[in-house]
């Protein structure tokens, strides 16, 4: 898939995200729209996986530690063929496999149930260790949010992954700069994040998380890492692609009404 094709795909995924959250009447558009370009590139260009065989043992593992951004994951999984696209409109409904936060036991393709923040990187460490033990070549990817990185367990994991020499584990931080109570820098600043992770012995690369060329280069770089885990710090815009949502904290966890969703979709499609 070329960069132009990725851009087209991402527009479609953004429409899916807006429409499914509108239909659900609740959900997290801001962080879904900030991470969706990364997921689109990862799932279509980098991840070795078989949608028709979600349990394929050799598959690369993907963990959405910031589980509230699952509308983006669901849109990508549907695009890849893990389930019919019509299911997207059942988000957050009773008995739907598309739970408010990802549930691995209800939706094939979800590697781990997440939503309680700060846990995913630890799970990724276990998966990467298992790969090493079994001498398997799969890579484990974990997407974290920047607000999420305030959790202490993230730093326990950040300390452990280089010690365990997990070159087959990569972290992608979706740095959209916002969290529920305000800007991350005001709530609890993470900076200098790159220096922190380097001090924890990670290989670090900072990119524009909406520039597909940079995303693809970074994913390739991380996948090729050998003895140390790689961290991709992706600077993103919360609510990216919908002007009235971009950078507006209020859209962290609010559903658009019909009118707002229509406006958002028109904007995305004409971009």
């Amino acid at each position, binding site marked *: 898939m070329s960069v132009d094709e990725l851009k087209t795909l991402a527009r479609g995924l953004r429409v899916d995200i807006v429409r499914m959250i509108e239909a659900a009447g609740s959900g997290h558009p801001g962080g879904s729209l900030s991470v969706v370009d990364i997921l689109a590139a990862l799932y279509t260009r980098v991840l070795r996986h078989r949608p028709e065989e979600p349990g394929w*043992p050799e598959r690369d*593992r993907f963990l959405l530690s910031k589980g509230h951004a699952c509308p983006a994951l669901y849109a990508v999984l549907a695009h890849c063929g893990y389930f019919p696209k019509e299911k997207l409109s059942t988000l957050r409904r009773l008995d739907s496999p598309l739970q408010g936060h990802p549930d*691995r*036991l209800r939706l094939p393709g979800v*590697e*781990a*149930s*997440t*939503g*309680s923040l700060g*846990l995913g*990187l*630890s*799970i*990724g*460490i*276990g*998966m*990467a*260790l*298992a*790969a090493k*033990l*079994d001498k398997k070549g799969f890579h*484990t990817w974990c997407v974290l949010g920047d607000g999420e990185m305030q959790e*202490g*367990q993230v730093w*326990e*994991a950040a*300390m*452990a992954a280089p*010690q*365990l020499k997990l070159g087959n584990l990569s972290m992608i931080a979706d740095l959209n700069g916002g969290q529920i109570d305000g800007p991350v820098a005001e709530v609890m600043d993470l900076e200098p994040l790159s220096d922190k992770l380097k001090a924890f012995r990670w290989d670090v690369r900072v990119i524009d998380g909406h520039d597909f060329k940079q995303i693809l280069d970074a994913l390739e770089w991380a996948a090729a890492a050998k003895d140390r885990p790689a961290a991709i710090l992706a600077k993103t815009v919360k609510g990216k692609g919908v002007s009235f949502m971009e950078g507006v904290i209020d859209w962290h966890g609010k559903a658009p009404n019909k009118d707002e969703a229509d406006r958002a979709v028109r904007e995305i499609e004409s971009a």
Partner: protein
Amino acid sequence: MPKATRQAFGEALAELAASRPQVVVLDADLSKSTMTSLFGKKFPERRFQFGIAEANMIGAAAGLALCGKVPVVSSFACFLVGRLETIRVCAAYNRTNVKLVGTHAGLGIGDDGASQMGLEDLGALRSLPNLSILQPADELETRQMTEWMLDHDGPVYLRLTRQKTADVHGPDYRFKLGAADTVYEPPPGAPLQATLFASGGTVGEAVKAARALMDRGFRARAVNCGSLVPFDEEAVVRAAQDSARLVTLEDHHVNGGLGSAVCEAAARRACAVPVLRLGATEFGESGTAEELYEKRGLSWSHAAEACLRNLA
């Protein structure tokens, strides 16, 4: 021979892992205390050190389990349950095949004092769906539970003692999930003054209490509840039918553990029987295990007294 259940676990694990290549062990700087060091010496390539960072260790265990491994994580009971959120999501909610082993349960650890005594772990963990909870009384039961735990597909919490516990089972004993077993039964005769329910470090005390009562002409049964989740409700119903009272004896807070499990069973099955719960009601303190069991009302003599206490 009296043996600490953590010791029996460590020996069994190192032995059973030989024929179970999927078993891996994760440590948080306490392997010499939880006795997983015995496994580590034998299978260094399957043992991972996580440092004093239990939450990450539990999360990593979930990841290993999701890739087909059988990860055993251990620490003191209080330090494991202190990472309840990680246990809740990574082990229970994800229903991963993680084996959580909490050693140094309760007042029985003695000298180290209150901050190291797990007295609330059962209360917290019993409310998690999908999680089986076991507490062996002696070496034989520990070995059998360890084997069951490794072969069972699903998250398990195994609660172990620092101190040595007396053998309460004969060689024919076979652990069965969800089943309590009688470790002392008075000879047939008149109805019983009491049935004593105990688990883990207090089972030996319960047996001693029942024997001492018999010597004085009083009749009490001692029941070992090794399987706390699932719990043997029928054992409570049967005891309520032939005993004037039920007495629970546990090295845990009286709320949330064995005493609660017995009361829940009695209430659910409408058993009209008084239940006296002996266990911790405050944080612990330093002292020997024996001194603490005596001071906090967990010794056999307290249990025997409770069996005869005027309930009016």
